[in-house]
């Protein structure tokens, strides 16, 4: 019986696709940041893959069982940030517990878990009682992160919870009604933004107005992408990247590097890999054996997709700059570890479904 624990192989198709994107990312990172960064990132990826394999071995019932505890822990850490957090650039986001952790990142997994847990025994589509509970759970996390202040992450975290509600089958009337209400209240919300946040939105609307300061990054990024052309300038041959015109090119702007050096064809290849990963995950979600598993897998996949969209939109100048890394490719430990952990949950759902069916 003990041996059973390590017998679940993560879904080979999904794993292969993930490894391809990770490898592709390291190749681009070498050009953007050099060998040192590649070595460091490789260590984190190895750690993340080990985590993914480990999580795959856990039965999804265990996640379900421990969901309220995980959620309560996350909220506790978010509150702790207020009292013991480290302030960086005016915002308190980090908690120093030997290693530095950013509790808002944990939310991106624990919040969809909690909302899925609320719906796990509900008759779907959900009624008011469950929707109200879900709204409270989402509001608590989002509010705490907004107060740090971190508007970008709070919106993403809220989205991860809302996706669960969407997948649970909430009526279209409700969705369109809420959308309309949000659109109407945008002018009011504007008043609550911090100056630097307003600045970012204004800069997004007209980057050329301030080319030397805040608009600089986006202009340089667009030049990098555009000058890459269809076939690209070739690996380590992008002038925008190599001559340091491109800002933060190993982290948030790494897709600009890829676009410059591998061209449209390189972007197409990356997007295709991403698309296949998402499709495979949707399939796993659809095949899952119960509501909790379905909702959780579906929501995690959608949030992965949202990251890609925001980053790719931001660096090409169609979305405001919100500091979201490109999933599985940008340099940095927190992002890749959280993402591989959430893929671990998805592969766990997949592996255990099969076993039960046999």
């Amino acid at each position, binding site marked *: 019986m003990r041996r059973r624990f390590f017998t679940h192989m993560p879904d080979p198709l999904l794993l292969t696709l993930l490894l391809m994107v990770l490898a592709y990312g390291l190749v681009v990172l070498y050009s953007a940041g050099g060998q040192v960064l590649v070595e460091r990132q490789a260590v984190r990826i190895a750690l993340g893959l080990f985590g993914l394999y480990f999580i795959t071995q856990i039965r999804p019932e265990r996640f379900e069982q421990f969901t309220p505890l995980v959620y309560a822990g996350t909220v506790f850490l978010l509150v702790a940030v207020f009292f013991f957090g480290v302030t960086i650039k005016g915002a308190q986001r980090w908690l120093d517990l030997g290693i530095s952790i950013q509790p808002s990142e944990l939310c991106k997994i624990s919040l969809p878990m909690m909302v899925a847990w609320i719906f796990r025994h509900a008759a779907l589509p959900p009624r008011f009682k469950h929707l109200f509970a879900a709204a409270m759970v989402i509001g608590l996390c989002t509010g705490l992160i907004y107060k740090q202040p971190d508007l970008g992450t709070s919106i993403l975290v809220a989205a991860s919870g809302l996706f669960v509600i969407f997948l649970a089958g909430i009526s279209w009337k409700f969705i369109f009604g809420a959308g309309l209400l949000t659109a109407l209240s945008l002018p009011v919300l504007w008043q609550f933004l911090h100056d630097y946040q307003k600045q970012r939105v204004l800069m997004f609307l007209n980057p050329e107005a301030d080319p030397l300061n805040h608009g600089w990054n986006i202009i340089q990024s667009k030049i990098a992408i555009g000058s890459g052309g269809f076939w690209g300038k070739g690996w380590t041959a992008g002038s925008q990247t190599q001559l340091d015109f491109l800002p933060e090119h190993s982290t948030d702007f790494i897709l600009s590097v890829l676009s410059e050096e591998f061209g449209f064809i390189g972007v*197409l290849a990356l997007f295709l890999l991403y698309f296949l990963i998402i499709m495979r995950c949707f399939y796993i979600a659809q095949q899952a054996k119960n509501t909790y598993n379905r909702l959780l897998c579906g929501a995690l996949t959608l949030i992965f997709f949202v990251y890609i969209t925001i980053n790719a939109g931001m660096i090409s100048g169609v979305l405001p700059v919100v500091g979201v890394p490109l999933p599985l490719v940008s340099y940095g430990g927190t992002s890749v570890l959280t993402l591989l952990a959430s893929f671990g949950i998805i592969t766990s759902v997949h592996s255990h479904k099969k076993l039960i069916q046999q």
Partner: protein
Amino acid sequence: MMGRELKQPFKERRIFTERIVVAVGLVTLIFLLLLSRYFYLQVIKHDAYTLQAEQNRIKYSRIRPTRGLIFDRNGSLLAENITTYRLVVTPEKTKDLMTKLQSMRSIIGVDDEQVAQLEEQLKFNPVFKPLVIKAKLSEVEVAQFAVQQHRYPGFKMEPYLNRKYLYPIEFSHLLGYVGRISQAEYNRQDPEVYAADDYFGKSGIEKYYEHTLHGTPGSLVTEINAQGKQLSQTIHTPPSNGQNLTLTIDLSLQLAAYQAFGEETGAAIAVNPQSGEILAMVSKPGYDTNQFINGISQSNFNLLANSADKPLFDRSIKGGYEPGSTIKPYIALAGLYHRLITPQTTMVSNGYYQLPKQERRYHDWKQGGHGQVDVVESLAESVNVFFYDLAYRLGIDKIHDFLAPFKFGHLTGIDIAGEKRGILPSRAWKRANRDMIWFPGETVITGIGQGYFVITPVQMAQAVSVLASKGQITPLHLVQHEVTSNTLPFAISDAHWDTVHQGMTNVVNAINGTARSIRSEDYLIAGKSGTSQVFGKSEEDIYKKDEELPKHLRNHALFIAFAPAENPQIAVVVVAEHGASGTRAAAPIARQIIDAFMQKNRQEGTS
């Protein structure tokens, strides 16, 4: 009550599948939109962006403005900027940063505390942002690192201007010091003017005149070719450097004043009573401000912060003292102005004073009293009984209203950061702060400068300069600029000024003057000593000699003076902490400062 609704697994799976289909549709649509955006940039607009990339040869960088220098009144340099090197590292350009750092310790002096600090900073420092390993490298370190540089890729030495104080100890509180701008300070500044690693005035003149000294940055345009080779470098906008400051301080007098203290601690201020210019302003002990510029180590800071004689405390503008008997000339003036006494009025001092129908005795400092005395003699011998009686007859309201325009208990507005307000006692103050009514006995001791008074040396200096200039209120200042003087809100006749000046002249020059020991043969000094109580004494302790007490329990010694008495050129305030009596500890220091000033004046007059 409805029971739990039945779950319908098949219906639910159908709903979910329906939603997944919608999601797949959305994902596909958005991917296509993104791809079309990239197609637009990379294929349709490719030529335009290629052109831009080729023209993209211009980089802007910031030119740091040079901080203004600080000079004394004669043009002697007090604070300057020295070109120094610092060692920085760009984390993404080096492997095994911490190991490299350890191996580097043989050539660059970095202690364990600094290494731990760097490790902490490294956690939050973006990998592409250079981090300062050590500021202010010594010449030996620069030479040794230059030889070994090839072993440390990613590390480099960077020239920068380091602030340096030429007389850090004597000017520590006056000039203050600069340090790296803190996050909180940076957030309040214009990001166009300040960079995150700029200097920022942390105290003293450096803080008060921060925006004058700092200047505004310029920008540098660097042109490079497509291979990244630098073609040209031109200044786009030149920086406008910080303005230099010329102080009213006289360097030689400042040094003389600091030295005059010997082993004593305290504060001294010398001013020109006609112009309001501060010639010397000392708080002793000082400390080495140069060690704060690049961040002082925690252990050195603790050493200063926990030192018993409080070197970090600026006594000259923050130290609060009772004025003691130095208040008597002002009380005498108030009595003359309100016509409660004339220059001829006499009274008998027999050793103590009592309020009608009260037991408590208010003592003279001399057992048995001084006999029959007028106001001039009362000042010269510091007769407490004369001033107990006068203060009682004036009443606290008149005393408060008379002293306030001299700036006692008010901010003088001196141009340095951190001045404290102090307390000038009044009925209103006591009601607001002690929630009690004013007692007549408190008026009595106010007459000899005791009670609730908390007065700073700079307030005493402002007051004595008003006294010396016969009613001109000229704002005291440290950086040369035009000031407008005012007159007291009440007109005091010349005869009354002369009476008080005579009394103060007799303090130093009359046969029974309390400070006769500092008399000068060459010019007349007018002065008044005082004692600021460190703690209240019981009645039997009144006559106990201060020398019998341990040093930290001894009273503070005060002395105010101006000279020459007939045409004052300098006014001086000295506070010698725990110096016991004003005459013994503070007066000789004042004499040395005045001597240094008169000597220099005479030399300049003859040459």
